[in-house]
């Protein structure tokens, strides 16, 4: 018998049916001990949130076991609770009623739960707002209600699902500080915290351990201890060093080309999805890099500099690297000579470079081959989408086709008729016309 608070053994989760069935997470093993604050990070679609829902018993995995204190979890985990990204407050209940409702569900008598909920609201600094409705509060205050409600049931395992990402910068920062204070000070009976976030800095700032996931299928690729004492200083060299290391885990290891680029759909091996970016954004990134000293910058600084979310930055850097416009090493992104050329070129030259580069991508080679093989070099959008659904979720497949169309149009490799939803091979005539 192990002493873990929570243990996931070989968790696999799949959605959909038949040919459209796709794997959200595959064979995930993870253990959380008492006293641990674990952060789960990774690109969107890697199954972080799915995992959180499995841990709390909201979803049942198709394979694998969830053990809580060594016992098999069946149904909703009574010792866990979630703080949601969108707060999930009931808009028609007052602040106090929102907290009380959690106690009411446990069958606590009215007078007791009133006292308790007022105490909790005091603790998070909302005294005086008991009779307010959520819509009268700022985002930060709403999330405080979310925390108070979660604390009300005295959970052993507190799960945060992007709990700070819908808040403005200052509110998020102060709420993080307050949570850390309650947690490290032992003011709450919580035994462990599991936080899902796409904000890597937040993960390094708060957690004792960062678990890195990757997608297609969702799986754990790294488990990194954060050996820093609280309170942590964002600007300290130690902090930045750890941050760089975590970014390096995420933003890409240098691998041989066939692994780097993946394989085409239908071939053996992992199909590399097109990163979810628009060409305009990519051009913006390259132009920005071109203007930074030494054409190089820490990846984590891009978020601030470009005013983008972490997911977008990851997708953009992935695209830049995939197309050979930049290299990523040790948490730094550096423009390649090719990227430099692209950034300084004019529109037609850019299109040419872009076309040359995307033709090497197996996904794109496949799209073009399909088009060439098709009658009159025309192809229904749905043909591509359905073919891709063998390897991607329906949404992802549709998105991949959109991306292929978007990129291909920019590169003038193909044309697309929105009304008939048909792809064409772009030829000299159609360009002239």
């Amino acid at each position, binding site marked *: 018998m192990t002493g873990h608070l929570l243990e996931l053994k070989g968790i696999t989760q799949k959605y959909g049916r038949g040919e459209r069935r796709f794997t959200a997470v595959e064979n995930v093993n993870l253990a959380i001990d008492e006293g641990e604050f674990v952060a789960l990070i990774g690109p969107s679609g890697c199954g972080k949130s799915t995992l959180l*829902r499995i841990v709390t018993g909201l979803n049942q995995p198709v394979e694998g076991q969830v053990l809580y204190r060594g016992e098999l979890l069946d149904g909703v985990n009574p010792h*866990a609770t979630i703080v*949601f990204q969108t707060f999930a407050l*009931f*808009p*028609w209940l007052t602040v106090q009623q929102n907290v009380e409702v959690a106690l009411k569900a446990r069958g606590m008598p009215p007078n007791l739960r009133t006292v308790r909920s007022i105490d909790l609201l005091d603790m998070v600094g909302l005294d005086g707002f008991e009779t307010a409705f959520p819509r009268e509060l700022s985002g930060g205050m*709403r999330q405080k209600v979310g925390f108070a*409600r979660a604390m009300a049931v005295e959970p052993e395992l507190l799960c945060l699902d992007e709990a700070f990402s819908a808040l403005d910068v200052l509110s998020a920062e102060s709420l993080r500080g307050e949570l850390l204070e309650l947690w490290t000070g032992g003011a709450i009976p919580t035994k462990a915290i599991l936080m899902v976030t796409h904000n890597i800095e937040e993960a390094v700032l708060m957690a004792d351990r960062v678990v890195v996931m990757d997608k297609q299928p969702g799986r754990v690729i790294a488990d990194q201890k954060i050996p820093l004492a609280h309170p942590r200083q964002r600007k300290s060299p130690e902090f930045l060093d750890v941050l760089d290391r975590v970014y390096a885990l995420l933003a890409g290891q240098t691998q041989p080309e066939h692994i780097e680029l993946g394989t085409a759909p239908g071939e053996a091996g992992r199909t590399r999805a097109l990163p979810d970016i628009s060409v305009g954004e990519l051009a913006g990134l390259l132009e920005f890099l071109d203007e930074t000293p030494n054409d190089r910058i820490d990846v984590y600084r891009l978020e601030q500099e470009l005013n983008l979310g972490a997911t977008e930055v990851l997708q953009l850097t992935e695209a830049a690297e995939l197309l050979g416009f930049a290299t990523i090493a040790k948490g730094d992104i550096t423009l390649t000579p090719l990227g430099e050329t692209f950034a300084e070129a004019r529109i037609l030259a850019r299109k040419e470079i872009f076309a040359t580069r995307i033709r090497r991508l197996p996904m794109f080679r496949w799209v073009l081959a399909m088009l060439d093989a098709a009658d009159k070099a025309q192809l229904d959008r749905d043909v591509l989408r359905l073919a891709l659904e063998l390897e991607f979720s329906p949404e992802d497949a549709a998105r991949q086709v959109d991306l292929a169309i978007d990129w291909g149009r920019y590169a003038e490799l193909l044309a697309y008729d929105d009304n008939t939803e048909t792809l064409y091979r772009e030829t000299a005539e159609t360009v002239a016309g």
Partner: protein
Amino acid sequence: MLNLFSGIFKTQQPAQRTFGWADGIVLALVVVVIYAGVRLAIDTPAEIEGPSISLAPEVLPYYAVRSVGRMAAAYVLSLGFALVYGRVAAYHHWAEQVLMPLLDVLQSVPILSFLPVVLLSLSAVLPQGVAAEVASIVLIFTSQVWNLVFVWYQSLTTIPGELNEAATTFRFSTWMRFRTLELPFAAIGLLWNSMMSWAGGWFFLMAAEIFTVGEKDFRLLGLGAYLQEAANQEDYRAIGMGIAALVLVIVLLDQLVWRPLLAWADRFKLEMTESDNPPTSWFYDVLRAAHITNWLDGRVRQPLMRGLDALLVRTPQTSVTRNGTNGRQRRPWFAYLVLAAVGLGLVYGVAQTGQMLAEVPAAQWSNIATGVAATLLRVMIALVIALAWTIPVGVLIGTNPRIAAVLQPVVQITASIPATALFPVLLLVVLQLPAGLNIAAVVLMLMGTQWYLLFNIIAGATAIPQELKFTSTLLRLNRWERWRTLLLPALFPYIITGAITASGGAWNASIVAEYFQLGGKTHQVTGVGALIADATAEGDFHLLLAATLSMILTVVLINRLFWRRLYRRAEEQYRME
């Protein structure tokens, strides 16, 4: 106030494939139920005497109370039915597959065709007076219930995922989920649809209070019967009084019930922002200021709710798996049993129905075909006329808050006056004209259904983003270009949604529009509605069955093959979200 509309009229149509196995089962089910009713009807006694309806003005308050009571009973029944039906459909995948198409078909069963089924089967088991009363309530129920089911089902399936998950992680019991999450979330939609349901009930009030089936006369004391009797005797003073009483009742209900409820329900908005002009009600303000209401709230309502909570808080949890894993959803074993039993019953019933239909002579069938065609033509004309005026007026109201402030209340009151009550007056005018009856039929369909269109178009026009309006001004688009590039595409989904409801309503209204009694004489035009009404009056159950089934089939086919396709296209191409 206006922007509320966009929320309520957004997605009335469930997104379904055009025709599936479930539709077949469902059609068969409806066929069999109607057949069973008709069978029962044939066995009832041949002659029944009804009560006499007084036309004296002093009976009006009493009659009004009787009618409102009937409507209220039917409404309570509708709400209860909707809550159960919608919840089962929303949370059980296997039930959803049958229940939703079934609803679609039931919606298009003409109200009067329910009549013999309901009335005569009831009078076989209940005393005649009670049977008539219950039958009337059931008939009103069939004109009120469907949109309530739809809106409740729709609310349940669109509860935001995280609110659902919060309810599950905090281990809400079924009762708590219902009271804390589901009902508040659906409240505003349910309220607006309740108002629409009442309007629908008033429209069919006359039909629901006077039934004469062959020699069997079931009449009930009420406003509808009063108006009908007044029209029969061509007593225009009584008609005027009756209409005045009806309008008064409607206005009173609006001011004392619906407005206060709307003002109160504003708290159930999901938006996290304060609305700029929430609905207001003077009566609600009075109630809130009154001590007696506070006293009642503290002494009666709150203890009652606490008691209910204590009693029901431990009900088992509902597992809401809509967006969850459902890796494999197993049908419960009894579902198979039920399915098998239903299947056997269906096969037998369909065979019996077929036999009965086979006895309908060929001449009748050709009558029915002509009737369906004639009614279809009338429905289309009514729809075109309605579109022609509602689009410009709707845009005017929807894009211009100043005009809206003036016209909105007028439109709402006008819309709530049932066209059927005004019909005798209308006939007086129209019958003088050549083809007067045909005009009258179209006008009645129009009056009954144009409001759905108008309200939808207002909602659509309100939802057009201000930026787009500015852009089209800045681009100096002329009037025609503005309509073509901005207004019509933006309105398209709303027009379609409105037109689906309106055309469904028009088919249903055909029964009262194509056949009517005035001054002791029966007037009718060629149409399937007239055939159904006539068959009911004559007690010709074979014809009734054949005509009803033909009408249902036509309406369902038109919906599936025409409207639903248009709707899907509208959703995909023109939705502004």
